[in-house]
């Protein structure tokens, strides 16, 4: 049968049985509006911008329209990852046979198990995934974490020891601390201390190492050393919390500024913008300056607007 006749036959059968076109990547790419949306959504997902529920809803619509499009499937997985919706991500990835998962999806599934504390599944999955990606260090570490949390400390130790040169060459402090915790769980106190001290020599502010070491010294009766390390860990935590809090406050100030802008309360916009401007990154600073300029303009304060514009120009240079 010639190609033309075969095509006509398919067309006729499709007409007869009302079958749908595959609606895959080819159709998606030819739909300019849809592609523009996909591109926009992927840009958001590749950035640190918030991924709004409306954008997720739009992605769901596109997936309905183009159910066979691999590009949308990949975008969906990125979106679930961004939303930290581990259960849905796991379910979605589980529709593919484990052996057929590509390396990226294999790692995504491992992280989904890890974040849900499904350690038995994590151990099984990483074991399988590593058979086709034996050099993947992330999978190895996740497998070790899974083994530790399922009470298979000896296997975790074996795994980490086999990769110890890699751990060291990468300077992976978390990996070293993990090995220290495995020693600790196995009652190998001296070895645990050695690993945790090694971690601290590379990263003196590593909170996990400080805390673990403090507890070991406390258990050994060395209360002074324990208290010293514990205080160090608390200070590290205090600073981290302070930074988080400052960032969250900044978010709050900028959100309020946006609301005031929408309410045309320009004087308050300027006040809030000036509160925030020294704490934001250069890109955000430019946007904040635009709010200041716009507010001054709407208040008829041309000199102030001009000065703010100069600030913006300086920044752009």
């Amino acid at each position, binding site marked *: 049968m010639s190609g033309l006749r075969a095509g006509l036959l398919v067309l006729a059968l499709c007409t007869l049985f009302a079958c749908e076109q595959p609606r895959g990547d080819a159709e998606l790419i030819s739909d300019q509006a849809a592609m523009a949306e996909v591109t926009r959504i992927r840009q958001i997902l590749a950035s*640190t911008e*918030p991924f709004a529920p409306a954008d997720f809803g739009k992605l769901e619509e596109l997936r309905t329209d183009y159910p066979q499009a691999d590009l949308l499937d990949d975008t969906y997985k990125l979106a679930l990852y961004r939303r930290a919706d*581990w259960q849905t991500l796991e379910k979605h990835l589980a529709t593919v046979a484990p052996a057929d998962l590509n390396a990226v999806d294999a790692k995504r599934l491992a992280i989904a198990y890890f974040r849900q504390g499904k*350690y038995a599944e994590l151990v099984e999955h990483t074991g399988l995934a590593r058979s086709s990606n034996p050099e993947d260090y992330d999978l190895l570490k996740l497998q070790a974490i899974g083994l530790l949390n399922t009470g298979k400390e000896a296997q975790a130790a074996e795994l980490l020891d086999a990769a110890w040169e890699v751990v060291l060459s990468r300077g992976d402090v978390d990996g070293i601390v993990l090995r220290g915790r495995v020693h600790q769980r196995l009652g190998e106190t001296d070895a645990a201390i050695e690993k945790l001290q090694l971690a601290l020599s590379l990263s003196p502010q590593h909170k996990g190492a400080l805390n673990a070491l403090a507890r070991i010294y406390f*258990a050994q009766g060395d209360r002074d050393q324990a208290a010293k390390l514990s205080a160090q860990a608390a200070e590290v935590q205090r600073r981290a*919390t302070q930074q988080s809090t400052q960032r969250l406050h900044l978010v709050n100030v*900028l959100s309020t500024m946006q609301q005031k802008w929408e309410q045309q309360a320009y004087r308050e916009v300027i006040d809030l913008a000036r509160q925030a401007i020294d704490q934001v990154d250069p890109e955000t600073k430019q946007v904040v300056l635009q709010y200041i300029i716009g507010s001054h303009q709407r208040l008829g304060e041309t000199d102030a607007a001009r000065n703010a514009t100069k600030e913006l120009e300086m920044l752009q240079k």
Partner: protein
Amino acid sequence: MIRPILALGLLALSGCESQVEQSADAPTAAAASSTIQFADWTSESGVEFVHVAGRGEQKWMPEIMGSGVAIADFNRDGAPDILLVNSGDLGAKTRRADAANALYLNDGTGRFSNVTQAWNLPSQGYGMGVAVGDYDNDGFPDVFLTHFGGDDLLLRNTGESFVDMTPEAGLETDGHWSTSAGFFDYDADGHLDLYLARYLRFSLNDAPKSYQNQVLVYPTPLLFEAVADRFWRNQGDGSFVDISAEVGLDAAPEKGLALAIGDLDLDGAPDVYVANDTAANQLWQTDAQASWTDIAKLSGTAYNEEGREEGSMGADFSDYDGNGLADIAVTNFQLEVTSIYRQDQSQLFSETSDLVGVGRSSRARLSFGIDFFDANNSGWEDLLVANGHIQDNIHLNSDSVSFAQANSVYENQGDGSFVDVSASAGDALAAKSVSRGLATADLDGDGALDFVISNNHEPAQIALNQSEAGNFVMLWLEGTTSNRSAIGARAVAKIGDRVLQRQVMGAQSYLSVSDFRLHFGLADAELIDELTVHWPSGGVQRFQALAHGQFYHLIEGADPIVFVPGESLIAP
């Protein structure tokens, strides 16, 4: 055209850390079979309590946090009664009529009568939690009610009504947000002192907002300053004196939500565990002569196993593995485990949640109230947990997490491990709610422990135990030299080869109080061969051959008296 600031990457920060909280709503493991069964008894119980949270568009934090429940025998008829805390409208000093606190008296069979008005149970401000203890040693358990924005109340129980003693007692509040409270006798003088956990500085006037992916959500505690807890010493004359600074609490503000108070290291001095939200938990070793010492960080009970702070909401103690040392369970945020801090040696704990079978399914829920209780009278204490998310719009940011969640029960396997049997534990565990406070007691006098759960902006739930339960002995301890509530007493039962230990705790769960009576599940055993009671006064008393199926009233220094719950009033 100005690019809206909300589109900027910086604002993604509002969706980070504690605000990123998605996971499964229900455990994915197949439902484990269990003999533990709970039936929803709410409609038959006569308890018609609906919590009013006053939730609004502003997403003010207190709206999502309440409230608590207390179970205690308020009228001394031997049957545990129920006091439910309501909330109302934020900022209102006067409580609206449909948001009143409520007191229900038990007839001994699990049927309750609302006596709120007859007992003059007051309602004011925005209610949070409740503590119970006989602070004046008159034989009737008194009540302390906590609130957002001060307004805390000390209510003296006369046996037939409550009298507000707050001003006379000197328990003046400073307007901050009180959460859980607990009575205990820290200096062993026979008078109950009062610990008050406090949360954070929250003002209705300028409360900062949190956004998760551009959606306004209830704010993260990280945005707020912690408020120091308070501790009052009972002077024995009906008044209290604030000694928070003396014991060191003033210098250690964290964001306290829950308390567990008992003796962890068996040194006779109460230990106070404070579950703090997004801050290190605290474990205070109390000392009557000096300032207290927080050993949480060194003992391994401040953080998770990786050394990170968690969003801790509830706490309880139990020697769940029978090694003679009480362990600690702490409920946490979604995607964080319900921590099981196992006490391996005195004052040395390991976080074992994943290893003992609690971690996985607890990550799939956001948990508040918690109680170790022996649901099937096996002698091993099981674990009951109240769940419910804090974001009423969580569905916008997750397809797999819901606001209302089912509560959890974990069956203790007797080998140091637990199995989540929630899915097969009866209709009381099937319902999805936004649960907060939780308390347990034998409400119907059958020797099996039932539970009451307070749900945020929903009806409270009463659940009766219908498990295939073993034998039991129930003990009502009453101090004479010791404080009358016997808070701080520890009972050690020898049952054949087994040794079981229970404590009368000054506080546990979240905003709530369980019945003080000590419940011993005996499995197939016919009696407790020997019971040793370590009274808070330091006295030790031994009892022989306590028969199963009995409710014993053990008065310090006297012989046991058998009583029938709800049969008659028992004079103090």
